């Protein structure tokens, strides 16, 4: 498997660390309910299809990436920097 880091270019999967679904970017604010935290931390759409998930270029530039990826075919259709993502 290969991912294209927006900074470093196409690299082998072994350079990356996987965290989980993009949900982790949407941290509930102060005062959010425990149900919101449960949803944020645990509940997942877990789609068999196109997902957006978080990878870290650990052996590279140390940037966190949002990867748009198909969990059935492993096709990757987009990679963006978490730090520079369109919010």
């Amino acid at each position, binding site marked *: 498997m290969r991912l294209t880091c927006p900074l470093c270019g196409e690299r082998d999967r072994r350079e990356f660390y996987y965290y989980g679904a993009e949900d982790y970017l949407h941290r509930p604010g102060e005062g959010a309910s425990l149900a919101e935290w449960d949803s944020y931390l645990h509940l997942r759409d877990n789609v068999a299809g196109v997902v957006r998930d978080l990878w870290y*270029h650990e*052996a590279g*530039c*140390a*940037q966190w990436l949002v990867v748009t990826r198909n969990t059935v075919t492993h096709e990757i259709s987009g990679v963006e920097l978490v730090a520079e993502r369109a919010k």
Partner: protein
Amino acid sequence: MPELIAKSALDGRSMNVGGVTLAEVQVGPITSIAVLPGGTKAVAKGLRPLGLSMPEPNSFHERKGARIVWTGREQAFLIGVDCPALEGAAVTDQSDGWTVLALSGPAAVDVLARLVPTDLRLGACPVGRALRTGVNHMNAVILRTGDYAFEIMVFRSMARTAWHELETATHMVAARAGVKI
């Protein structure tokens, strides 16, 4: 008063096998420059006296013995000269954090192909490239310094492992050279 003698990780070790030379080299000061939000212009100004600028991703530039190496988003290592005072950036001394190994010879790229998961063909990795990648299980910065020459920066504490792995790969590449298909 203690007498503090400086030591490098590998005592300047070098070897030559099958036309490949591997050596620990001293590169002088290494300073990390991490640009703070809004600091781009100030950093550019600060670097101007050196004739250097923040490098594009995956590249390094040299000028009069000073080298600036891209090491990440809005980050570079200034190598070989003391860092001038810079506004707009976090500046951190990294001189002692890294061991630099120079690998050269026609088969140097074959040696690295045993350990580095990145495309090092000259077309994909021309002279002037700086890659943040891995050397087997270690993180590294690899500089393409010549058609047949690389410099490999690894964490100082892992220098012995890096040396051992490069040395082993060099021996295996050399042993193959005698093999006919």
